[in-house]
């Protein structure tokens, strides 16, 4: 496996590439070329005649012109400038001006995985794609769950999004309306669990009211108190999965669990720019009417978060980084930083994981 570090500091790698990243939703990819950028690599996505999604490097081998500005022709993509034709494996199969194909005329083809909802691509060392199973989010297509969400770009670095997901106590400050009332009380202990590649956290709240809008949706009295449980998991640098459970004790000693699942597929476009696809799934109030109520509530919240993270990015750009004061509740965020830092160090061949080397600077390349 070759070190993927590039020589120019302008293109120094700051995000892990050996990771499955969400490049597009399935319905965004069709018979027209779709240009996307991730981890500082331009990618063109399209479907061949049998519907298979393809991801190629978005740059013609002839001149620096994106293939996404060309057209799809059968199972091929044609450059909109040179007229070079490439197949789904990235090999040039036709050149307008001569019958022979120039040696080495090809573009990179990226391993791709489609799960029915998202199109994931592997932009790092290609041989590792088969050795790292793609993440699974089966609830997004499970009929037992109703899902809503949006996708947009946030002009903030991937790491700022991770740090935001790693600690949800800010929700009560950012959006008191959406926040479960328990977040405003003194929270119970947070349990953080780590592995080599993942970080998760969880805590259980003693019986307390739930937000009024959720009580309405569940048909429960607004002042009823419920045990609530929260859980969040950093699955990969490209995926967070969270959940919020509300326990409803029914008469016969049975407990119903009403669950929100939050899925955040986040993709670093470049330093300071991140694609964010968020999905909110629920196993209760499955109907469309509830969805129409919930979509504006969650859109409003995630827009607020987006504006805050973009403001943080602006402050970093203007003033540079500063040593931050962390608190005990930041344990999960610090573990996430460590995993990302180590991934970048190992991928770029920067060598030392634990020193003031290119690796640790890379994570906060500012």
């Amino acid at each position, binding site marked *: 496996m070759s070190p993927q570090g590039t020589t120019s500091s302008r293109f120094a790698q700051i995000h892990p590439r050996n990771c499955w990243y969400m490049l597009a939703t399935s319905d965004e990819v069709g018979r027209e070329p779709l240009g996307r950028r991730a981890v500082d690599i331009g990618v063109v996505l399209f479907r061949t005649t049998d519907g298979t999604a393809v991801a190629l490097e978005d740059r013609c081998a002839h001149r620096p012109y994106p293939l996404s500005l060309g057209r799809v022709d059968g199972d091929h993509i044609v450059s909109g400038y040179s007229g070079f034709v490439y197949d789904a494996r990235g090999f040039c199969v036709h050149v307008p001006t001569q019958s022979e194909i120039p040696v080495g005329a090809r573009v990179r083809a990226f391993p791709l995985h489609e799960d029915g909802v998202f199109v994931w691509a592997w932009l790092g060392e290609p041989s590792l794609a088969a050795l790292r199973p793609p993440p699974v989010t089966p609830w997004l297509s499970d009929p037992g769950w109703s899902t809503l969400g949006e996708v947009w770009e946030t002009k903030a670095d991937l790491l700022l999004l991770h740090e935001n997901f790693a600690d949800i106590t800010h929700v009560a400050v950012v959006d008191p309306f959406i926040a479960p009332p328990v977040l*405003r009380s003194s929270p119970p202990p947070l349990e953080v*669990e780590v592995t*080599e590649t993942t970080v998760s956290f*969880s805590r259980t709240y003693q019986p307390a009211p739930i937000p009024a809008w959720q009580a309405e949706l569940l048909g429960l009295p607004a002042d009823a108190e419920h045990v609530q449980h929260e859980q969040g998991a950093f699955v990969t640098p490209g995926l967070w999965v969270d959940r919020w459970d509300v326990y409803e004790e029914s008469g016969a000693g049975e407990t119903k669990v009403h669950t929100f699942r939050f899925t955040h597929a986040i993709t670093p476009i470049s330093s300071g720019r991140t694609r964010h696809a968020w999905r909110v799934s629920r196993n209760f109030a499955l109907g469309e009417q509830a969805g129409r109520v919930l979509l504006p509530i969650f859109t409003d919240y995630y827009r607020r978060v987006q504006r805050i993270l973009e403001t943080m990015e602006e402050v970093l750009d203007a003033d540079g980084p500063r040593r931050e004061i962390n608190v*005990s509740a930041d344990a999960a965020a610090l573990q996430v930083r460590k995993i990302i830092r180590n991934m970048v160090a190992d991928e770029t061949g920067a060598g030392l994981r634990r020193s*003031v080397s290119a690796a640790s600077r890379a994570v906060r390349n500012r």
Partner: protein
Amino acid sequence: MPFDKLRAHSQEAQSRSRQSQGAWGRILSAAPLAAIVRIQTNCWLLRRADAIVTVTTTKTIIREHETDLVVREARAVADDVVVLTLADPRGAELPAWTPGAHVDLILSDDLTRQYSLCSSPSKPEVWQVGVLRAPDSRGGSERVHAALTPGSLVRVRGPRNHFPLVASRRYLFIAGGIGITPILPMIAEAEAAGADWHLHYGGRERASMAFLDELASYGDRVRIVPQDEMGMLDLESVLGTPQPDTLVYCCGPEGLLSAVEKFCESWPPGTLHLERFSAKPQELTGEAEASFELVLERSGLTLQVPPDKSVLTVIREAGVSVLASCLEGVCGTCETEVIDGDVDHRDSVLNEEEQASNEYMMVCVSRCRSPRLTLNL
């Protein structure tokens, strides 16, 4: 239902919740732990009751993934070497890992041993570890061979990785005996990536060397050196001349590790990656241990470390949750960020450059030379 109405509802609910906060605080502090534990068992990841008991003293509890796995298979692969195949009893996928990772097998309350994963990261449904029965060791391997038969359960913590495969065009792998285990998934990935690699694998005799069949498929990239036929690994010919752009990975007995360390001194810094499963011999200075002040910045605590206590012990006695496992500076779990202080490194995880950078320390064994040590805890 109209959005405005919801907003109005929510404001009402919020003022109600503010009034009742005091009551919740009392309920929380007096809450029977059993109630919390009961709910935990309904949830996503398995929780262990005893792990939550410390909650009254700390607000954040950090720990490694830990779970009971079932032994699906115990296969003898060489004299005194067994490969265990471990899986979740309900068939759930196990946490993702990369080559070089290891896990703790918790064999009893006072017997925990580290074993490298030797299966493939592409198979998240099982982990495999290779265990050599070593009669003169501390009893862990005897226990594994005797007790971990198919169908039995074993508590497993991890994985963690302090021996990662860093991207490179060329690798030299050197394995001694059971030290082949972490190397096995490494060469699979190096081969898949088209890297230029060679493995030098030494052992007592062929019959004692695990995975010879698997390694045969790699042809002349692998050199098998049974001592009874060919003598010791010829490190002079392998490492005598530093090669550019080549990373050296070594795992095996202490004698091999220290010899390889010696040879690699003339190689570029950052070349050598090795992993120890027992503590590196420490030079005893004969000086008495000093006491020093310990500042835990995030927790806002200033503590004193006396000569007879480790930094880790003092942190835990103060009720601050911190990761740790082997307590002898070999597993790397308690790696902690150093903010200030002249660390006296005594671990077997960090290499010389990493120790010199003074950015991280293993708080289970390392101490401080300066009067004050400040940690990001």
